[in-house]
C-alpha cells in the first residue's frame, strides 16, 4: 500500500540497512558467536572440574579428527551455501542456534512470503531476522519444557506416531518451501530438482567414490551453486521473468 509512494525513500531505506543495521549486526554477531564458543564448553568443563572426569587427550583428539573428517567441510560449505537466503544477520543467528534446514530456513522463507518482501533484498533480510528470532524463542522454550516435562508424554505416544513425527514432518516442510519458491521460478525449480536428484543418485550408486571422504558435500555444492549458475545464465538469456507483483 505504501509501496507506491515510498519509491523515493528506497535509497534511504538501503542506507539505513547498509550504514546502520549491518555494522551493528556484524559487531554484535561476532561478539555473541565467539562468546557462545567459549560458553559451549560449560558442560565439558563442569565434568572436568566438578566431577573430576578427564577424558584422555588421545581419545578426544582421535574422536575430533573423525568428526572433522566427516563434517569439517560443512563448517564452510553450509554458511556459504545458505548465506544468500539467510543474509548477514540470519547467518549469525542460524549457525549459533542450529537446526537450519528444518527450522530456520523454512521460518525465514515463510515469513518473507507472508510479509510480501523479496528474498535477497534488504527488506527480506529484516523480515528473516525477525522470523528467525521468533523461531529461536519458540524452539528454546519448547525444548526446555520438553527436556524437563514432555519426555514421558512422548514415550507414551504409540510407536507409529513417534516415528511419524520424527520422519514425515520435515520432508513436508522441505516440499512446501521448495514449492513456495518454485511458484516464482518454476524453471529454476526444475533445474534444481534435476541437479539434486542426479547428484543424489550418483552418490547412492557409489559413482562419486573417487572423491575424498564421504562426498555428500559435492551434492550440496552442485545443487546450490549449479542451480545459481544455471539461473543466472537463464536470466541473462531472457528465459526468466520476475515474479508477478501480487
Amino acid at each position, binding site marked *: 500500500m505504501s509501496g507506491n509512494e515510498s519509491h523515493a525513500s528506497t535509497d534511504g531505506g538501503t542506507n539505513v540497512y547498509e550504514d546502520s543495521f549491518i555494522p551493528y*549486526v556484524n559487531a554484535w554477531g561476532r561478539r555473541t558467536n*565467539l562468546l557462545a564458543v567459549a560458553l559451549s564448553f560449560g558442560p565439558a568443563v563442569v565434568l572436568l572440574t566438578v566431577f573430576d572426569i578427564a577424558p584422555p587427550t588421545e581419545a578426544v583428539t582421535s574422536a575430533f579428527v573423525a568428526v572433522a573428517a566427516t563434517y569439517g567441510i560443512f563448517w564452510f560449505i553450509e554458511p556459504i551455501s545458505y548465506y544468500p537466503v539467510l543474509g548477514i544477520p540470519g547467518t549469525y543467528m542460524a549457525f549459533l542456534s542450529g537446526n537450519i534446514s528444518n527450522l530456520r530456513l523454512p521460518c525465514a522463507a515463510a515469513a518473507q512470503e507472508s510479509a510480501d518482501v523479496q528474498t535477497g533484498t534488504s527488506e527480506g533480510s529484516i523480515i528473516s531476522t525477525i522470523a528467525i528470532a521468533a523461531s529461536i524463542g519458540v524452539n528454546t522454550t519448547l525444548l526446555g519444557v520438553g527436556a524437563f516435562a514432555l519426555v514421558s508424554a512422548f514415550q507414551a505416544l504409540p510407536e*507409529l506416531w513417534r516415528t511419524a513425527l520424527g520422519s514425515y514432518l520435515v520432508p513436508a516442510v522441505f516440499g512446501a518451501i521448495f514449492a513456495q519458491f518454485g511458484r516464482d521460478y518454476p524453471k529454476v525449480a526444475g533445474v534444481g530438482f534435476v541437479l539434486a*536428484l542426479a547428484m543424489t543418485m550418483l552418490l547412492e550408486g557409489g559413482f562419486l567414490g573417487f572423491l575424498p571422504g564421504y562426498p555428500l558435500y559435492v551434492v550440496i555444492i552442485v545443487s546450490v551453486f549449479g542451480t545459481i549458475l544455471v539461473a543466472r545464465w537463464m536470466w541473462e538469456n531472457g528465459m526468466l521473468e520476475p515474479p508477478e507483483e501480487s
Partner: protein
Amino acid sequence: MLSLASTPAYLDVANSHWLWLSTLPVVLVVLLQASIFLRRAWSDGKEMGLSEEQLRSGFKTGVISAIGPAVAVLVGMLALIATVGGPVAWMRLSVIGSVAFELPAAELGVSQFGYSLGDENISETAYATAVWTMTLGGTGWLLFSAFGTPHMEKLRQKMGNGREKLIPVISSAAMLGAFAYFLTGEVAAGTPETGSVATGGIVMLILLRIADERDVQWLREWALGTAMIVGLVVGVALQVTVGSWW
C-alpha cells in the same frame, strides 16, 4: 521411563543439577543475540519503510512455522536425552547443533572406548569424551560464521555479477538448490517420505494460490504449518497402507 530399570550410571552425572547449570549461560547467549537482533531489525525495518503489519506478520509466521519443526526436534531429542542426558541434549539442540550431527558425534566419542550409544555400561570417561567431541565439533560452524559472515556479501555480489536485479534471482535459486538437495535425500529414503514431500508442496501451492486470489493474510501465515501437518498425515497413511517400495 522405558529404560528406568537399567539406567546406566553415567546418566546420574549427565542429568545432575551441575550439568543443567553449565548449559544455561550458552543458551542465554542465543536468546540474548536473538532479542538484540530482533529489536534492531524492528526499529531499522520501520525506518526502511516496512509497515508495522509486515513486521508483525513476519514475527507471527516465524512463531507459527517454528512450532511443528520444534516438536519434531523434540522427538529427535528423545534419542539424545536417553544417551547424553537432558541438559546436554537441550543445550546441543537449542544451540549450534542438530540431531543429525550430535548423535554421530557422540557415537564417535564413546566409540573410542569400544562402546556404542545405548550400551548400558558406558563409562563416565567415555561419556565425557562424547561431550568434548560434540563441543569441539560444533565450534567449526560458530567460528566460521563469526569471522566469515562479513565477507560473504562479496561472494554473493560476485555471483550476481554486480547487477542489482539479479540478486533476488540468485537468492531464490540458492534456496531452490538447497531445498532440492534436502528433499531428494527424503525422496531417496522411501515412499512415505516422498509422499510427504509431494503433499507438503501441493498443499503449499494450493494455500498460497487461495491466499493470493482472495488476499487472505492469515492463510499465508498458516500455510507452512498446515502443509507440514497434512504432509505428516499422508506420510503415516502411506507407511500404514503401502509401506515403502524402495
